[in-house]
């Protein structure tokens, strides 16, 4: 589904990603862990198409298409989804208008008729139940005045609405209490299907108790320095990152 080959990326001339290689297949959950400043969020941002990062080398194939040639909106329409570490507040834009625009632009891209108002509202209702998001939240402006937990739940709600092929969850667990964490993780697990995949970026093992990864990668200093099964996360939790930093 996703193939990253020797990816290098800069911000303001400073190299952050220094040769990433990663292969993700349908049905898989990959966790990316690593200390602060190792490039985890940069990798997520580059995948989503953030312009401030300059890709200097390498390629990314997403379902056979060159991802780097696509605009951020087309990446989304092709089935890529980024759950933001810090979701953006958009005053004045209602959740309903925002989601309606998103869903219908995706449908247009696929050559499908836009949803009728009643079908759209029905879909909103079903997805809200699925991810256990409070109904009142969707009557407000996008993320405006939402608590940290509400913002993260809202990201998972949007993911449920858009049904992406590949979801990238950028530190979705940060700022969540244990109940919110469980709700968010449950949402992700319910949306898991054999034909989609997820990348879970996190500092802590805690989230991986709920979202069980097939692979764990350690990103350090712009490179994936170690990949293994889910047991690697437990090892990290126990030993910290020092043994990675000190060169195994």
């Amino acid at each position, binding site marked *: 589904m996703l193939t990253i080959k020797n990816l290098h990326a800069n911000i303001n001339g400073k190299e952050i990603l220094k040769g990433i290689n990663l292969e993700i297949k349908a049905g898989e959950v990959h966790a990316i862990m690593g200390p602060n400043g190792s490039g985890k969020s940069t990798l997520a941002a580059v995948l989503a198409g*953030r312009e401030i990062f300059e890709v200097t080398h390498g390629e990314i194939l997403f379902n056979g298409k060159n991802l780097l040639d696509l605009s951020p909106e087309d990446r989304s*329409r092709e089935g890529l989804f980024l759950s933001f570490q810090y979701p*953006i507040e958009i005053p004045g*834009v209602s959740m309903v208008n925002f989601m309606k625009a998103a869903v219908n632009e995706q449908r247009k891209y696929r050559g499908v008729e836009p949803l009728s108002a009643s079908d759209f509202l029905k879909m909103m209702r079903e997805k809200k139940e699925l991810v256990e998001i409070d109904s009142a939240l969707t009557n407000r402006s996008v993320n405006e005045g939402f608590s940290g937990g509400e913002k993260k739940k809202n990201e998972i709600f949007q993911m449920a609405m858009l049904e992406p092929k590949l979801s990238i969850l950028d530190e979705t667990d940060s700022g969540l209490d244990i109940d919110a964490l469980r709700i968010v993780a449950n949402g992700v697990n319910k949306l898991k299907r054999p034909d989609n995949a997820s990348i879970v970026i996190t500092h802590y093992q805690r989230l991986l108790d709920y979202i069980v990864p097939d692979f764990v990668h350690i990103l350090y200093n712009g490179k994936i320095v170690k990949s293994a099964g889910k047991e690697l996360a437990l090892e990290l939790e126990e030993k910290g990152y020092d043994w990675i930093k000190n060169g195994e």
Partner: protein
Amino acid sequence: MSKTTTISIKEELVDLYLSNLDLITDNSAPILNSERQAAIENFNLLGLPDQKNEKYKYSKIEPLFTQDFEKYFAPKNITFKVDDIFRCDIPEIGTELALILNGFYLPKGNKINKLDNGMIYGSLAEAAIKYPEIVSKHYNTIADNSGEGLVALNTAFVQDGIFIYVPKGVEIDKPLQIINLLMSDENLLVQYRNLVILEESSKACVVVCDHTLSAQKFLSNVVTEIVVKPNATLDFVKMQNEHNDCTQLSHVYIKQQKDSRVTTNTISLHGGFIRNNLNALLDEEGCENNSYGLYLTDRTQHIDNFSFIDHAKPHCTSSELFKGILDDQATGAFNGRVLVRKDAQQTQAFQANNNLLLTTEAKMNTKPQLEIYADDVKCSHGATVGQLDMNAKFYMQTRGIGEKEAMLLLMFGFAHEVVKKISIEPLRDRIDDLVNKRLRGELSRCHNCPMHCC
């Protein structure tokens, strides 16, 4: 602008007045006529506001009057049925609809109407004849003839306009809609006057829409006086939608008495040159005044909002929110003066002006101006001029929303914060819709009008 030109424009207007005085008075009413002499003398002293006038720093008024305009001092024969060419885009909200064509009330039946509940509306000139006791008590009592040359000019030339009277205790839930139409085969200067009176404990909503139906140059110099008596509530919505060759100079004067509530929404969708003067005098205790404004400009349009909230007495609250989106080479100005007089303790006054500039060539001047002479007050103000939030745009794009659509949604969201202040839901929804169309460039002319004048 040289001084000689200034004098000649002023003299030209005074001459115009003197040589047409008979025609002006014949087509008006004694109460309106009785104020003219003093007004033209005031105008002769004041002249048009010039660049030395701090209030008009960002809007040059004199050059607007140098164009060659026709001046009608009698209503022209109507050779068309307005209904045939104009269908308002805000339907089914008003119980009553009043039309003004080129400054004269355009009767469908009677020139003045009295409803079962006692509400009176129609031609101001006719009201001055039929209800002289009401009109004379209020007409020209709050407009500033001695300080504002354009108001004095209006008082000298005014012949007609809209009169609205809501009797004591009468509450009208559905809005009264006034549509100002400009249509002419020559460039035209119009000066009309509106008078709105809400008696004690009454309630009303007035929606004023300005439209142009032909492509000629128009210059409107309009004064609206609004008297709101104790415990009365007025919602006043003004929709400006005129073409790029139009100039509108609007002067609204509001006087509020004890415990009254007034909310104004000034929505400037389109216009060549707009200057809105909004003056609210909170003349007794317990008044609430909300002044909201939205202006959407592009190309070389210019919109200048000047507000003056006068807290004369204690325990009054005022809240102002003006927001604007400026595209292309558009220019705008906001000047918000709030005066809290010495006696006006326990005043609460809030003001905000936020602007989005879509290009590097668009320009906005904003000036909050708080003058506080009381010591126990709560006042705040803030002004911002900025660009669209690129983080929000990116966030939307990652959800599959295209860049252009994302920017439109952001602009719409920005504008909606003003529109959502409109209390009447169907009206709010319609204005949301018009704002949306305007931002999408689908409202380049008066909507639904087949004249295609802009």
